[in-house]
């Protein structure tokens, strides 16, 4: 693929896309799944009480099936589920006579059928040419509609900015296995990440994708043939979770680069992830340790954070509602979410291309499985110019070996580092800063209201004179700039460029871009007054800058809160 073309602007070298081991996936699929099943059986046999384990799995699966109704395209899977668990229930009535290993095998092979993806090189090649074509078509159509004079390539360049450590990532892909861990805001992320990986000239990645994505038949067809494996967060039983972890470990051990969202689902609040799911993340260290024990070449696993910044998020309304509902925990998976209907997705890209909106994708500094930075040779950088040998960190009592508690602790430290990196690799867009400044300026008017009372302000109360807002926005820009200078986050190039002109310029841009897809405009300006039509959405977009100590209450002398924590009045700090 020549540089430029119909692709977004890329400031890194496009290399010939190399064949990854994923291309040989289909040939080894059965052997690989059987290995994963065997490992999982091994993890349970002999250790814990198998009857109890199967009993618990049965209970939680039956509970899940009762609670969650399958979508139209998931009915076949549900039938298989019902058959299996009906069979298990019949069997465990007479526990004395069961062959426990055989039963465990059967359950795990059932999961294998669900989790295990496929990889079809022909579909991959098709997708590689179709996706850019699709993007170009959409752009072209959208541009024609808008009568943009400056041509397709030019305007596409302004849409998708891939910045950060791309060359380093490209080099590391040759030294070990990449585990790409993006922040997750929208279902669009899944398509976008696949495209970004392709643009970075990397071989195809295996993909941990939420089961709800597979409810769209077209997408399901592509995803399940492009190495995606299913992650169903509704399944909480130990057998499933262990199987999933072993699957991820196995593909990483086989050198297949992978992606999964370490925060679990999409960010409900709009803030950057502050809690990381340790289970799947821990498969990195497990795979690396096993490979080192086996003395495999390219044994190392590199964790690469990726932060995506959008001016608008398709499903923002339902996400923030879910976040705000105190009892929202049980609705962890939004099944009736508006975002994943094909019409909506098409509309997202249409609006993306027809407006002057852009998406910034930042590839963060790669880490090793302990949270150390790595150089382009894949060496872990310790403090004071030292190089960390992972074998030493994985040696216990003089022996290189797996130690589950030690590795869990390393993973916990890695997760904390990852959260820190997510915050630092965040790119602030004009719309984020406008939302934040406006929300905080309103809070100054009502400093004692708690979150829920604040969100119910009347239309009149949630307005500000434009001049007053402008002053406040300028001050927040200065505060953010201090953080940028300290390397604690990034400003988008657009914002930087517009801010050089005047505060009014970037503020106007931010207002125009902010959630421009939603039915109700998040911020409106008329007659020198600024107001919001949807406080929840404003809060959602404002939260993108929470966790940096910038909020109005940070200056009130209250206890400093970290990322993801609420202040005394219930606002994300």
């Amino acid at each position, binding site marked *: 693929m020549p540089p430029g073309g119909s692709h977004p602007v890329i400031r890194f070298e496009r290399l010939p896309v190399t064949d990854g081991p994923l291309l040989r996936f289909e040939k080894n699929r059965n052997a690989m799944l059987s290995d994963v099943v065997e490992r999982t059986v091994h993890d349970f046999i002999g250790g814990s009480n198998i009857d109890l384990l199967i009993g618990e799995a049965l209970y939680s699966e039956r509970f899940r099936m009762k609670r969650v109704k399958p979508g139209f395209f998931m009915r076949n899977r549900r039938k298989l589920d019902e058959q299996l668990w009906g069979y298990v229930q019949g069997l465990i009535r007479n526990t004395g006579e069961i062959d426990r290993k055989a039963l465990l095998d059967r359950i795990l092979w059932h999961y294998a059928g669900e989790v295990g993806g496929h990889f079809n090189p022909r579909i991959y090649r098709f997708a590689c040419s179709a996706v850019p074509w699709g993007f170009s078509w959409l752009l072209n159509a959208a541009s024609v509609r808008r009568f943009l004079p400056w041509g397709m390539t030019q305007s596409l360049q302004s849409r998708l900015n891939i910045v950060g450590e791309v060359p380093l990532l490209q080099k590391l892909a040759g030294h070990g296995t990449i585990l790409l861990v993006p922040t997750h805001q929208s279902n669009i992320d899944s398509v976008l990440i696949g495209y970004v990986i392709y643009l970075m000239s990397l071989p195809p990645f295996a993909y941990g994708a939420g089961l709800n994505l597979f409810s769209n038949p077209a997408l399901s067809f592509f995803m399940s043939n492009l190495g995606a494996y299913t992650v169903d967060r509704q399944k909480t039983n130990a057998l499933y979770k262990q199987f999933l972890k072993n699957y991820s470990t196995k593909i990483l051990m086989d050198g297949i680069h992978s992606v999964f969202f370490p925060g679990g689902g999409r960010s409900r609040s709009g803030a950057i992830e502050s809690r990381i799911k340790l289970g799947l993340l821990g498969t990195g260290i497990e795979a690396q340790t096993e490979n080192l024990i086996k003395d495999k070449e390219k044994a190392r696993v590199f964790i690469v954070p990726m932060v995506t910044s959008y001016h608008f998020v398709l499903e923002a309304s339902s996400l923030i509602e879910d976040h705000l509902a105190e009892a929202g925990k049980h609705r962890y998976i939004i099944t009736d979410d508006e975002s994943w209907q094909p019409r909506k997705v098409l509309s997202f890209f249409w609006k993306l291309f027809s407006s002057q909106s852009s998406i910034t994708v930042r590839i963060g500094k790669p880490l090793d499985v*302990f949270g150390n930075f790595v150089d382009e040779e894949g060496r872990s950088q*310790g*403090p*004071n*110019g*030292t*190089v*960390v*040998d992972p074998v*030493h*960190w994985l*040696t*216990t*009592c*003089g*022996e290189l070996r797996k*130690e589950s*508690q*030690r590795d869990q*602790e*390393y993973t*916990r*430290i890695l997760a904390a580092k990852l959260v820190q990196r997510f915050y630092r690799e965040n790119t602030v867009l004009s719309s984020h800063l406008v939302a934040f400044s406006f929300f905080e300026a309103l809070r100054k008017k009502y400093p004692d209201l708690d979150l829920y009372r604040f969100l119910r302000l009347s239309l009149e109360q949630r307005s500000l004179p434009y001049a007053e807002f402008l002053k406040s926005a300028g001050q927040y820009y200065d505060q953010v700039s201090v953080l940028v200078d300290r390397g604690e986050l990034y400003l988008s190039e657009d914002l930087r460029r517009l801010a050089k002109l005047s505060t009014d310029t970037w503020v106007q841009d931010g207002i125009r871009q902010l959630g421009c897809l939603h039915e109700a405009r998040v911020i409106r300006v008329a007659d020198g007054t600024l107001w919001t039509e949807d406080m929840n959405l404003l809060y959602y977009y404002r939260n993108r800058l929470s966790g940096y100590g910038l909020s109005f209450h940070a200056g009130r*002398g*209250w*206890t*400093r809160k970290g990322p993801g924590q609420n202040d005394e009045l219930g606002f994300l700090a």
Partner: protein
Amino acid sequence: MTNSDFWRNSKVAVIGGGSWGTVLANLLSENCLEVRLWLRDSELARAINATKTNERYLPGYRLSHKISAYSEISRVLDGDVNAVVLALPSSACRHEARNMAALLGGHEFIFHATKGVEADTLKRMSEVLSEELPCRRIGVISGPNLAQEIARGEPAATVVASGFDEVLDAGQALFGSALFRIYRSCDMIGVEWAGTLKNILAIASGALDAMKFGWNSRAMLITRGLAEIVRFGVAMGAKEGTFLGLAGLGDMLATCGSPLSRNYRVGMRMAKGDRLSDIIKDLGGTAEGIMTTRTVWRYSKARGISMPITESVFQLLEENVSVKEAIQILMTRPSGSE
């Protein structure tokens, strides 16, 4: 190889040859192959090797033949030690760790015995060490351990805390003896803060004792002081229960009544009207509580954490109030519920 077999055949380095470092080296020598003790003073190192005693800090205390003292850090950490124990004042930790970094391989377990935090950053010593050393398996040893008493062979107990179980296993295997019991904790934040914060109360306790008050006032100080440091510790991420254990209440009871504690002596002499600068000169070691009081006072003010006793100790150290005035201020505060 089992855990204790491994450590029995290991070499261990102790960084810091003060009284606690010396006692720790001796405790370690019972459970490992060789102990290398690092001190900045080469004369003292030579004297220790020649006489097998540390006459400057613990006169007459006999050291094991397995201990060798050095003043060159490279001879102590030449690649084959499996654990490093730092017994340094908090102000020296970062600097010495930086000097050690290039000499460590990464497999070493690191323990520290410092009861203080970094002055400006408020970072705990384990955080400082993980920022400076290419090692991640770090633990802390802290508890009611007055070095002189342990040197006399009196029974005592301590806590080893770390996020890594294997560091706790190592801590128990390395430091434990028939007279020294090791308890384990996974709350490293709590143990580090408990050891740090109790020094503030040790100063207060010394001052109170100088006034020749009885047990009622000491009990009031310890109980209300505990409430105060728990409040602070929890705000820093510690678990409340840790403060009720050896590293919290245990250490407070030991230091709040013992003239062996340097912090206690600081409080006592301040109450008698001596100037802080003179006291520091005479101490013969670091009183961590002085710096801790300033740092914690500043932070608690900024974050709105109520710490009236710390405030009084701070004012006393700044020589703004006398002990009598400080007590009067504390006693006339508006009453509240416990």
